[in-house]
């Protein structure tokens, strides 16, 4: 069996108190996981769940309090430079020096990874053209839009033939069509080069589309790891939409009597109900003389799972 290129064991990060007499804060609490070769693993969780802290530790820009990170079977703390030769990242929230042009910035990063000369030029031309920013290459970074910067950062991340890429909300500032291209690009890189990717996003449809598996973090702990659809299925509550012809007030009263959340918009009643209980509910509804002309059942999605898991945060 092939060894996972990234193995994280019992990783914990506790920050010291900000003020004297305050309490230390544990942002990541004893998490263990593996990123398999060619896998796209989603890292989800509400704000403050520990996603960014985890990524920072995986990049070596934040040291763990306890636990270990192993890249390619080697201890990251001891072999940081060698490991990072094959690990890159892109984030919407990190910029590049604004005095340098796009091309100069990428040349600096290419040189850091020893990707130079024609290899650099061919690769950059390919990536920048793919992302539609080839014409911007001689502009300084301060002249680019947020979306353009994001695409440059992605080009940077895939420049040095990485084996692992950490993508922190790579589509956050992109238009839907460009975001679609990014997803296509990420999948292609995995398919062509077997790149393993750790992917964070707040777009649940995107995570469902791109990720093989999703790891859900909450208050620094991993609370679930599964395929996106399995996580969605674990939410038993579906949304049933009824276009009510007659008995809107009665349906609201009826649903509330059974402790079911109900919302009314115009003639439509939206009832949150366990999928298993729908048939029984409709049978009872018939007995109440309530007539409806349309019925639709929205199956639970990853977003529902996310909302359910994040509820305690609010």
């Amino acid at each position: 069996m092939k060894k996972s290129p990234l193995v994280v064991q019992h990783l914990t990060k506790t920050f010291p108190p900000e003020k004297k007499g305050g309490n230390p804060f544990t942002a990541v609490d004893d998490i263990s996981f593996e990123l398999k070769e060619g896998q796209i693993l989603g890292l989800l969780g509400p704000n403050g769940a520990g996603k960014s802290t985890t990524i920072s530790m995986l990049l070596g820009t934040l040291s763990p309090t306890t636990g270990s990170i192993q890249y390619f079977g080697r201890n990251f703390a001891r072999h940081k430079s060698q490991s990072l030769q094959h690990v890159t990242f892109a984030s919407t929230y990190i910029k590049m020096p604004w005095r340098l042009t796009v091309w100069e910035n990428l040349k600096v990063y290419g040189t850091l990874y020893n990707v130079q000369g024609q290899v650099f030029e061919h690769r950059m031309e390919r990536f920048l053209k793919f992302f539609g920013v080839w014409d911007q290459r001689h502009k300084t970074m301060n002249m680019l839009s947020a979306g353009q910067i994001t695409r440059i950062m992605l080009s940077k991340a895939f420049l040095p033939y990485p084996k692992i890429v950490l993508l922190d909300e790579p589509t956050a500032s992109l238009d839907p069509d460009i975001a679609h291209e990014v997803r296509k690009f990420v999948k292609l890189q995995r398919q062509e080069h077997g790149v393993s990717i750790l992917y964070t996003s707040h777009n649940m449809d995107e995570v469902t589309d791109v990720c093989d598996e999703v790891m859900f973090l909450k208050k620094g702990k991993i609370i679930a790891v599964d395929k996106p659809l399995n996580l969605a299925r674990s939410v038993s509550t579906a949304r049933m939409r009824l276009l009510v012809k007659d008995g809107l007030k009665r349906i609201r009263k009826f649903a509330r009597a059974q402790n079911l959340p109900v919302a009314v918009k115009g003639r439509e009643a939206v009832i949150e109900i366990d999928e298993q209980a729908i048939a029984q509910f409709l049978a009872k509804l018939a007995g109440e003389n309530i007539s409806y002309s349309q019925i639709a059942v929205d199956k639970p999605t990853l977003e529902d799972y996310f909302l359910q898991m994040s509820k305690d945060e609010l």
Partner: protein
Amino acid sequence: MKAHRIKALFLRHLYPLRRDFDLLSDMLYWPLVDTLLWGITSQWLAETSGQASVALAILMALLMWNIIWRAQSEVSRNLIDEIWNNNLVNLFSTPLMVREWLVSVMLLSFIKMGFTLVVITTVVVGMWQADILFFGWWLIPFIAAMITTGWWIGLISAGIILRYGPKMQTVVWTLPGALLPFSAVFFPLERFPQALQAISRVVPTTYIFETMRAVAAGGVIDWYSLTTSFAFNFLYLALAIWYFTRSMRHSVKLGLGRFN
């Protein structure tokens, strides 16, 4: 240590020189203003005092002070530039090692300082016929001492910024400034208040400036002063590297992302 990573940092800090006036003004404009100001002042002082060596001592002090300034500025200012550009995480999430960063900024300071020095020297020699070669081969240890001093000041400033954040960025400009009077750059040490002379005696550059003034006035090289200066310099450089690396470790403990 990989040469290509040092080259990358060279590119990172040399590319902006193509188009950035504020970087060029640091390297050329202010040193030229200083040179004109002190050049004319030194000529006037030499004429009124009747001692030609005063002018040479002041002009050499100016040259040497610029070496310290440039050497320290390249170390600490390059770090603050990465923070201003939100680039620290970008850099240190690559295979780049801290020691490679240190070597590259030290070498960069050498290159940029050389550039500034050529321009100032041309003006000093061209306008006032200052005989800077009067010191002969002794110029090499004098310059080496100044660069070393610049490096350790820069490393301490950079370490302070890494530890306490950009709110302390003023040390890039104030720390070398604090050393200026204690180094007895433009006046003899004996003119300094007695109580403060004790501090000056543990500042390595004091010995160099004192030696230069003595030689310019027709004296000889004082080996004890020169050795003391280098001993202090190497000790402070070692301590500054230690402090910088500890500050870097401290900063990574809190996360380099906090500078974004």
